[in-house]
């Protein structure tokens, strides 16, 4: 059952930070690959946009496998996975021109603001850039110049990265800053990113976490680069979205689109995220659990709109803030 067959009457299209989307359900970075696997599963069309795994200026291997550990209702995994260099895009036979591949958002990572800028610069020069509908900047990476603390935890670091990436990209290309919810003042960091050119905010990256192996009693993954994702963090995601939207409404933050990521697993989660103020959601870990999740969320979203008597999913956005 495709989303459309449920109800032709309800409008699912949204615009998130300049990005026109057929539905509010995107695929989160690193959880949907580059498109090969979803195509093979016949599920590439389930997401309204595909965010790629984070790319870096140079192809990077990693000391460890990108192993997932199972924790209650969540996954703990490394945030410094091996990554492809943006200069290598052409050579990699990505299926971005294939039928059924949705708009592609390229995620960029780095350890210095200059590295992000270089990754963006190289990306712009690739011929595949014609298929790139937007860029998402993964700010959960450690800043070499700031004791390896994540850029997303520091307003100056985050602002600088966004400004330098913005410079490298076409003026009208939607640019998303992916923030972390585990900071005490999310709005301050968000404001810095918007001022330096982000057209949208994505919350949240995996939250800093740790898991210790028994019986060795050693961390199972490197503590500095371990994150928690999955349904366990949904209430924290919702809170972060709420806070950003409330800041827009109170004037503390310029008007900017928010995209919710972190624990979205079913339609009711997506409805909550939209009501809290998100213009779209991304499904991540749950795609690993069940690759039909994006479709289930989309279909369920239609059903929820019908049940609530809402003609356009846009009418849900920010509803929790109305009296």
């Amino acid at each position, binding site marked *: 059952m495709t989303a459309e067959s449920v109800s032709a009457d309800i409008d699912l299209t949204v615009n998130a930070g300049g990005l026109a989307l057929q539905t509010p359900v995107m695929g989160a970075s690193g*959880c*949907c*690959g580059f498109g*090969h*696997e*979803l195509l*093979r*599963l016949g599920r590439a069309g389930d997401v309204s946009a595909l965010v790629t795994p984070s790319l870096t200026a140079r192809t990077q291997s990693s000391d*460890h*496998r*990108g*192993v*997932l*550990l*199972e*924790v*209650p*209702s*969540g*996954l703990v*995994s490394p945030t410094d*996975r*091996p990554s492809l260099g943006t200069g290598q895009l052409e050579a990699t036979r990505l299926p971005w021109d294939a039928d059924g591949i949705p708009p592609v958002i390229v995620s960029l990572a780095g350890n210095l603001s200059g590295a992000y800028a270089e990754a963006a610069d190289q990306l712009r020069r690739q011929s595949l850039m014609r298929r790139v509908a937007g860029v998402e900047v993964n700010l959960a990476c450690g800043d070499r110049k700031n004791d390896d603390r994540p850029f997303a935890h520091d307003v100056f670091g985050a602002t600088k990265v966004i400004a330098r990436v913005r410079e490298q990209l076409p003026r009208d290309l939607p640019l998303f800053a992916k923030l972390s919810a585990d900071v005490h003042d999310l709005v301050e960091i968000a404001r810095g990113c918007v001022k330096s050119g982000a057209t949208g905010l994505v919350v949240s990256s995996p939250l800093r976490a740790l*898991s210790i*192996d028994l019986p060795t009693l050693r961390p*199972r993954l490197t503590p500095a680069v371990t994150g928690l994702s*999955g*349904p366990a963090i949904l209430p924290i995601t919702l809170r972060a979205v709420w806070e950003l939207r409330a800041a827009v409404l109170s004037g503390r933050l310029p008007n900017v689109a928010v995209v919710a990521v972190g624990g979205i697993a079913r339609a009711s989660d997506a409805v909550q995220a939209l009501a809290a103020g998100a213009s779209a959601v991304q499904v991540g*870990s*749950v*795609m*690993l*659990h*069940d*690759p*039909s999740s994006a479709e289930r969320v989309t279909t369920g979203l239609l059903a929820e709109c019908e049940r609530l008597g809402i003609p356009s999913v846009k009418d849900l956005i920010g509803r929790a803030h109305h009296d």
Partner: protein
Amino acid sequence: MVEARGELIASRRMGVFQHHTIVVPELADRARPGQLASFAVGGRTSALLGRRTLPLAAITPSGTYGGTIEVVVDPVRDAGMRWLADLRVHDEVDVIGPLGRAFPLPAHGVDSMVLGVGASAAPLGWLSTALRDRGCRVELMLAGETDRHLVGVIEARRVIGTVSVVTPGPTGLLPVLRDELQRTLRATEISVVYAAARAPELSAVAEVARPFGVTVQALLDEAMPCGTGLCGSCEVPVTGSDGISRTIRCCTEGAVIRGDLVEWDRYVAELWETVR
């Protein structure tokens, strides 16, 4: 690769393991020995996000029951496997499969050895029959912690004739397994070993086989929490034919991998269970 709801239609104890027969026509009609099925575990109220990916033990293409697959579950492996083992007849379960690469079968008869440890040995009866059908001589070796950890000895004797059984000696299972394998390779003309086990045992098999110039086709029965190639959690370091190191995804590019290609030391050192 298809996703489907399967219905459990038969379940029996097999030593310490549980043998399930599940109706999933979409899967049963296309799987080959060495391929996998991946299950969502824990039901509607589950806190477990990772899938459990297992080698298929057998298939019965669509017929009376509409096509079944079989798997052997080790309930003590983790809470998810326990849930899977505890399923009862008529319960439904979400399955994706068939996944990955089958055991490559020789075009004509060769002398082969088929070796399995514990529940991982589940597909070896099916494989042995396929090899025998191609005119291969098959030596079967089944290893396990106890007699109750051996899968399909009796059935195998019916198909294969000679089945040797390996259980732990005073210093554990691995030394006995190594010795037995070495003795057999010395005494026979075996040119290929098909092995299904966890990584440490497979590493030993590959090491023992190397000096004999025997090809090992190893089914890596390790955690594969998505099964579809999306997560990257199951990566195995290999040396390509070009001599360059890279990683391949066990679930989609394995789980059968040529033993001489795997960088075993690195792989085993990096292996962590994906479950608490």
